[in-house]
């Protein structure tokens, strides 16, 4: 006889041994949270907008070919706004700098490139799930194959890349989103247990200039020069790679440790520690946002990757990303406020239109919307 779902749920957990609560520690964590919330509120209210400078200077300092230079050289106000203000979406509304576009169905993933946002829409009609939304709001459907399950953007180039998994190997595809043409296809060995032809996607490519990185099943990375096809195996598991700097996550089974490494050698630059929920690396590789769990929820900080004093970001617990110009952009937890912060922790707030109960969340760049 079939068992009722409710009965099965109760049988699953009702007899579990219950750990003893540490009430004084919980109260202490609550007091700390209350203090931090007050400080955060005051900081957010008092800060002055820190505009331009940071973003423009970072991008202007780069030198990676005509596409990237053109972004800076034109001094196009729309491009500057994209660099400074970032890109995000709420439901069908996609914002790129001070431009916006409506896409239906709503995009589930946003990849930042130097020329705009590459959006991915599940269930789109016409067989073209990928589009380029430029900072002036124009939308161009891209011919990227529909079976590219997820693309990674290069914030310093007009390119995206993705992995086509095969059996024990894969193909890395690099696509120029400005000309809408494939630039390269590079075959790589993928030793390890997965994905072996799976499209369920446990790996993603990181694109950083001339190099693409893809993790193997052995917790190493293949560093691929997609222009020449040269492949080098590196001893780390990459999460993000920008300007030759990578963040790496290592799970030893009991806990997860994060490090900043030299993407060319795998040498550890900095140990970020454990009990970290997530990290996001700045486009120039100079800073990293770290969200740490301390038993009292989460705290986000910006930290120089080379080491230095962390700066707390009030109101963020992880759903944030970097603008291509180097500012952290994200939704303040549980509100309809968008907060942008520079690397010194100076923030500005703006109301987010379109937030409602059907679309309560901002989709930042590089996140995949669930459900």
């Amino acid at each position, binding site marked *: 006889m079939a068992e009722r*779902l409710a009965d099965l749920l109760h049988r699953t957990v009702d007899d579990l041994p219950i750990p003893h609560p540490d009430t004084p520690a919980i109260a202490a964590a*609550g007091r700390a949270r*209350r203090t931090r*919330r007050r400080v955060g509120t005051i900081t957010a209210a008092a800060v002055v907008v820190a505009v331009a400078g940071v973003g423009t200077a970072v991008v202007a300092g780069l030198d990676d070919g005509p596409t990237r230079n053109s972004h800076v050289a034109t001094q196009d106000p729309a491009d500057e706004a994209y660099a400074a203000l970032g890109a995000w979406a709420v439901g069908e509304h996609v914002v790129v700098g001070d431009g916006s576009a409506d896409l239906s169905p709503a995009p589930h993933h946003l990849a930042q490139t130097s020329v705009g946002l590459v959006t991915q829409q599940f269930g789109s009609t016409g067989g073209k799930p990928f589009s380029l939304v430029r900072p002036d709001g124009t939308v161009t459907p891209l011919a990227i194959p529909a079976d590219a399950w997820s693309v990674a953007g290069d914030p310093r180039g007009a390119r995206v890349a993705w992995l086509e998994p095969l059996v024990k190997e894969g193909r890395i595809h690099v696509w120029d989103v400005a000309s809408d043409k494939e630039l390269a296809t590079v075959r790589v060995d993928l030793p390890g247990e997965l994905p072996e032809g799976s*499209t369920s996607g446990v790996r993603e490519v990181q694109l950083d200039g001339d190099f693409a990185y893809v993790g193997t099943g052995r917790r190493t990375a293949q560093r691929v020069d997609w222009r020449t096809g040269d492949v080098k195996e590196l001893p780390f598991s990459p999460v993000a790679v920008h300007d030759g700097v990578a963040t790496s996550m290592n799970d030893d089974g009991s806990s997860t440790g994060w490090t900043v490494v030299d993407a060319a050698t795998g040498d550890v630059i900095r140990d970020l520690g454990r009990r970290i929920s997530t990290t996001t690396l700045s486009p120039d590789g100079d800073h990293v946002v770290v969200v740490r769990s301390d*038993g009292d*929820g989460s705290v986000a900080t910006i930290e120089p990757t080379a080491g230095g004093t962390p700066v707390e970001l009030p109101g963020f617990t992880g759903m944030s990303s970097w603008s291509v110009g180097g500012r952290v952009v994200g939704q303040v937890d549980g509100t309809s406020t968008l907060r942008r912060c520079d690397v010194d922790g100076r923030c500005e707030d703006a109301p987010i239109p379109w937030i409602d109960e059907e679309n309560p969340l901002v989709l930042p760049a590089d996140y995949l919307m*669930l459900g």
Partner: protein
Amino acid sequence: MAPRASRSPTDEQFAELVHAAWPSLYRTAVLLVHDHALAEDLVQTALARTYSRWSGIRDVGAARAYARRALVTTATSWFRRRSFRGERPTAELPEPDTDHDPRGPTGDRIDLMAVLAQLPPRQRAVVVLRYYDDLSVEETADLLGVSTGTVKSQTSAALGNLRRLLGDGVELPEPTPPHPSLTTGGHRG
């Protein structure tokens, strides 16, 4: 009726709340996150959030509901972050592993937590809240901060997925049909 206080509750009342609410919150958390250590962290965080609002609480009875809401919202935010820790989810629920018997190798007990872990986070939350915590559609909507229609559609989707994953071994409730949509073509998330 829950006792009402004219002033802030005391730390002793918070301790009473922790001891009273801890077991049920912990069991709910285990179902939500499928990990005992994570569940303990989750409950501690939820109760710490509750304590951080303690001075503004006038109804100790409502504090328990606040703690449960904090538990669910914290779990949801954890799901979102975890989704970017190398666990790139796909657009659709993967096809269930039909070779995998949900009753496990001995064939006598269904590993429900493993099955729940295959559901998208919001579907998992509505299943746990409605069929373990026995909350109504309205209560679940209030807790998750969504509409009742969303709860009904998520429940329907979750039960459909459970039906595929569990087969005939479990008697699943009939989902409450969502209200007819009154929108004029706008996107429904």
